[in-house]
């Protein structure tokens, strides 16, 4: 245990995801020795993240204004909505430059073991959006893990009765650069069921 402020800082850092006690200590002592200008910038960034960032009214992505940049962009197709778990997933898909539609951020995945059901996510907002607007395609881009798959399953059930709506799921295949024999059963099974005509 260190004295006063240093230990307080270590404790706070240790509460961040992915930061263990040793890393917390290392970061704390790095900050202690850092240039005051660097610390000021970090302080400002921390301050702004809670004050300046809001969640978009429409899609739930992080935004600086009530409606985010993507939802305001008239060149983006409002008929196609890509459903993701977290704001970081929007960034990942944006980086591909493949998608010209809009997003819907759920705020997580259905995870009963953590007490997260449909009411804890932005599911109702998604359904309202599809009923009100001219959405013709929903792309389910939840994570390719157990919770993400179950979330996609649930959404398919909720969306299948909307007339004229196409619902697709991101294809899940084999990682590039790998050997087939090393693929796990779940990935290989999904790659097989999602095979396409060539």
């Amino acid at each position, binding site marked *: 245990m260190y004295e006063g402020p240093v230990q307080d800082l270590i404790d706070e850092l240790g509460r961040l*995801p*992915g930061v*263990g006690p040793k890393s917390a200590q290392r970061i704390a002592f790095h900050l202690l020795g850092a240039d005051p200008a660097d610390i000021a910038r970090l302080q400002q960034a921390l301050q702004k993240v809670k004050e300046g960032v809001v969640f978009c009214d429409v899609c739930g992505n992080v935004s600086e204004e009530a409606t985010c940049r993507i939802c305001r962009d008239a060149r983006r197709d409002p008929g196609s909505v890509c459903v993701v778990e977290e704001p970081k997933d929007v960034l990942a898909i944006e980086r591909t430059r493949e998608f010209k539609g809009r997003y819907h951020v759920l705020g997580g995945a*259905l*995870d*009963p*073991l*953590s*007490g*997260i*059901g*449909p*009411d804890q996510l932005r599911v109702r907002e998604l359904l309202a959006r599809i009923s009100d607007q001219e959405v013709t395609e929903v792309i389910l881009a939840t994570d390719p*893990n*157990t919770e993400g*798959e*179950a979330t996609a*399953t*649930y959404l398919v*059930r909720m969306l299948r009765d909307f007339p004229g709506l196409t619902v697709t799921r991101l294809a899940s295949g084999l*990682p590039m650069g*790998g050997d087939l024999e*090393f693929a*796990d*059963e*779940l*990935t290989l*099974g*999904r790659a097989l069921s999602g095979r396409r005509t060539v």
Partner: protein
Amino acid sequence: MSLYRDTGVVLRVQKLGEADRIITLVTRKHGKVRAVAKGVRRTTSRFGARVEPFAHVDVQFYTGRTLDIITQVQTLDAFGAGIMSDYQRYTAGCAVLETADRLSAEEGEPVLRLYLLVTGALRALADGQRDSSLVLDAFLLRAMAFAGWAPAVRECARCNEPGPHRSFSVPAGGSVCPRCRPAGAAIPAQDTLVLMDALASGTWDVAEAASPNARREGSGLIAALLQWHLERQLRSLPLVDRKGVPSGQ
């Protein structure tokens, strides 16, 4: 350097650091084991998807200082595929996993019976032949029996007087005769107790013939009994999507 090998079911996964996970398994010979799977969150991981919840796996562990480390994994049954493709099965399966986690609190203490109950329930859910809600309730009743909390359904929970009895008391541990009946005891339909008896004994033709009302009442009593015995409430149980009851209502 100490290696050991066992078969187990993945109950839960938690993130650890940048790319690792802590995997909790209920195993055949070593009871509940918490072990680290290194690098499994990277897409290049060779066994990431094998240690997802519901997976029945053959695992090699290396005994670590604090937590053991998973060095090899082979899939025995990928129950997850059949479970996560149906939301009712998924929520029922999560309740199976959480119950198993809570009933095997002492790490390392053998829980063979519980391991067999978990694999049996997940196999039935993944097959999809039986109603997921009935599979869950049968599992919960048998898991309670494993824990020494089997509810009395034929005889009086207090004096053993042969029944059937009309009253049912969760705190007393099941059906109660008119003399032992505590204040506030419920009076379930006779069908409900017949259903619970059938689920506990695996008499599936009787269980599957039960009316929707008996099923609903039985699920309620079984959940109340389990929660009565557990110190903390199960998170997943209220989120189980039962047939005919849309989730979130």
